[in-house]
C-alpha cells in the first residue's frame, strides 16, 4: 500500500512537470502578446499593464475576418464531401463487400503513409491545367482525395463490425440499398462519422503545405497557411506575431475543448487502427 502510494505521488509529479512543459510555450506566447507594441519582450514576464488591445490590432492587421471566412469556406468544401463519400465507400467495402473491393482497399492503404510532399509538385501543374491555381478549389479538391485513405479505412473498420444480418433484415423488408444505407446504416455509424468529422476539420484548418504551394493570396488560404504569410510579414514584430498566432490557434482549441472526448478517442483509435 505504502509503495503504491509513493508510486502514485511520483507519477503525479511527473505528470505535473509534463503538463507545465506542454503549457509553457502557450503561456510564454501570451506574455509576449500582452507587452506594449514596439518593445522587445523577454521570455516570460507578466506585463505590468497588459495590452489586450494587441489582439484587436492583430485581428485588423492580419485581416482576420477574411481569413476566417476563407478557412470556413475551405472546411465547408472539404469536410462534408469527404465524410459522405468516405462513409459510402466504407459501407460498400465493409458491409456490401463489393467484388474487387480488396484491390481498391489495397490501393487506398498505399496512400496511408504517403507524405503530401510526394504529390504536391504534380498537383501544382494539375491545378494549373484545370485553371484552378490560386483558387480555394486548388486546396479543396486535392485534400478530399488525400483524406480518402484514412477516411475510408476508418469507416470501413466501422462497417465491417456491423452484423450483416442487419442489412439482410432490411432487405427482407424490401428496402433498396440506398434506403438501407441512409435509414439503417448511417444512423448507426453516427459516432464513427462524428469522430471523422472532427479530425478532418482540424486537419483542414491546420493544412499548411498545400495552402502555400497552391494559393498565393493568403486571404484564400487555410488558417495555417495564412499564419505562415503573417509570420513572413510581421516576423520582426514579436508582440503582434504572438497575438496573431494565438488568435489563429484559438478556434482549434475551442473545437478541441468542446469535442475533446470524441476527439481523444478518435485519435487513439485512429492511430491504433492505422
Amino acid at each position: 500500500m505504502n509503495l503504491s502510494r509513493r508510486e502514485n505521488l511520483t507519477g503525479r509529479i511527473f505528470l505535473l512537470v509534463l503538463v507545465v512543459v506542454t503549457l509553457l510555450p502557450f503561456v510564454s506566447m501570451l506574455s509576449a502578446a500582452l507587452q506594449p507594441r514596439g518593445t522587445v519582450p523577454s521570455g516570460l514576464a507578466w506585463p505590468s499593464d497588459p495590452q489586450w488591445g494587441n489582439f484587436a490590432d492583430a485581428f485588423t492587421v492580419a485581416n482576420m475576418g477574411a481569413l476566417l471566412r476563407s478557412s470556413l469556406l475551405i472546411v465547408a468544401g472539404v469536410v462534408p464531401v469527404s465524410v459522405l463519400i468516405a462513409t459510402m465507400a466504407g459501407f460498400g467495402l465493409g458491409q456490401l463487400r463489393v467484388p474487387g473491393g480488396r484491390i481498391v482497399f489495397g490501393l487506398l492503404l498505399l496512400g496511408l503513409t504517403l507524405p503530401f510532399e510526394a504529390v504536391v509538385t504534380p498537383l501544382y501543374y494539375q491545378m494549373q491545367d484545370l485553371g484552378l491555381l490560386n483558387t480555394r478549389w486548388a486546396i479543396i479538391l486535392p485534400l478530399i482525395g488525400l483524406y480518402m485513405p484514412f477516411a475510408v479505412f476508418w469507416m470501413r473498420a466501422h462497417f465491417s463490425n456491423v452484423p450483416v444480418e442487419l442489412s439482410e433484415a432490411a432487405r427482407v423488408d424490401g428496402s433498396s440499398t440506398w434506403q438501407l444505407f441512409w435509414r439503417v446504416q448511417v444512423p448507426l455509424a453516427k459516432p464513427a462519422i462524428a469522430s471523422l468529422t472532427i479530425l478532418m476539420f482540424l486537419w483542414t484548418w491546420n493544412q499548411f503545405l498545400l495552402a502555400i504551394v497552391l494559393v498565393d493570396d493568403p486571404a484564400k488560404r487555410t488558417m495555417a497557411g495564412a499564419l505562415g504569410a503573417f509570420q513572413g510579414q510581421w516576423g520582426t514584430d514579436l508582440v503582434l506575431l504572438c497575438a496573431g498566432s494565438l488568435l489563429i490557434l484559438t478556434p482549434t482549441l475551442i473545437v478541441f475543448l468542446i469535442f475533446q472526448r470524441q476527439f481523444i478517442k478518435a485519435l487513439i483509435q485512429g492511430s491504433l487502427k492505422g
Partner: protein
Amino acid sequence: MTSAFGSAPVGRGDPVSTPARPTRPSAARAPRKRWARAGGTGWLFVLPAVVMYAAFVLRPLVLTIQYSFYNWNGIGVARWAGLDNYLTVFTDSDLLKIIGNALVLIVFFSFVPVALGLLVASLVRRITTGAFGTVVRTVLFLPQVIPLVAAGIAWSWLLSSNGLINQLLRAVGLGGVARAWLGDFDTALPAVGVIGAWVLLGLCTILLVTGMSKIDPALYEAARLDGAGPIREFFAVTLPSLRQEIGVCLTVTIIAALASFDIVYISTSGGPGLQTTVPGLEIYRLAFSQRQVGLASALAVVLMLLVLLCVLPIQRLTRGDKS
C-alpha cells in the same frame, strides 16, 4: 455464371434427394442476384471516393515518378534523363546531408517521445481516471490540435536569444550556454527536434497509458510474487504487452519526422546553411524556386520509399505476431 456452373455442385453435394431439387435453382440464382446487387449498386457507393483518390493522389503519384526520369524546368520541354536525377540524390553531398537530417530528426520525433512516454506511462498507469487524469489528458493533447505552424512560431520565440529557455538558463547561472538555439550551427537541428518532441510526446504518452490500462493486473501480481522489482516488471510485463501501441507510436512519429515540413519552414527555413533542411523543404524549394522539377520528384520518390522502408518492418514486427 451459366447453369452448367450452377449445377456443378449437385453431383458432388448430396446424393439424389428429390425435395432438394426445387430449391436448387433458386439457390444458384440467389448468389448471382446478390452479386449483381452488391456489384452494381455497391460499386456506386465506392466509386466517388475512388475517383477523388485516383484523380488527386494516384495520378499525381504516377506523375511524380514520371517527372523523376526527366529534366524539366516546369515550363519548357522536358528532356529524358534516365536515372540521372536518382544518381544526383544519392551522390550529391548536400542532398545526402538533407536526408541525413531527416534521419536525425527521427531520434527526436520518435525515440524521445516513445521513451519518455513509456517512462511517464509506467509511472502513471493508475492515475488515468478522475479529474486530474482528465486535465492531464486534455493538456497533453493540445500540441496535437494546434497548427504545427503555430507550434513553430511559439517555439521560435521560446528558443530565441531573449526567449524563455535562455531566461531560465540565466536564472540558474548557466547564462554562458545561452544562445539563439535555432540560429546556431551546432544546436539548430536538435532545437527543431525538440519542437517535434513537444508536439508528439502527448500523443505517445496517452496512447501508451491507454494501452497500459488494458494490461491484465494479474500479470503484475504474478511478477511481484516472483520477486520482480519495478524495473524487471517493466521489461517482463509492460514492454511486451505494449508492443502494438509502441508500434503505432513509432509509425506515426517516424512519418512525422521524415515528412516534416511545417515546423522547419516556420522556425528555421532550413538554416543556418543546410543544418536543418529536410527532404520536404528541399522538394518544395527545388520544384518551386529552382525549377528543377525532375530532381525534386526523384527526391520525393526517395522520401516515399524511405518512409515505407522504415514503417513496414515496424508494422510486421509489432502486428504480425498478434493475429
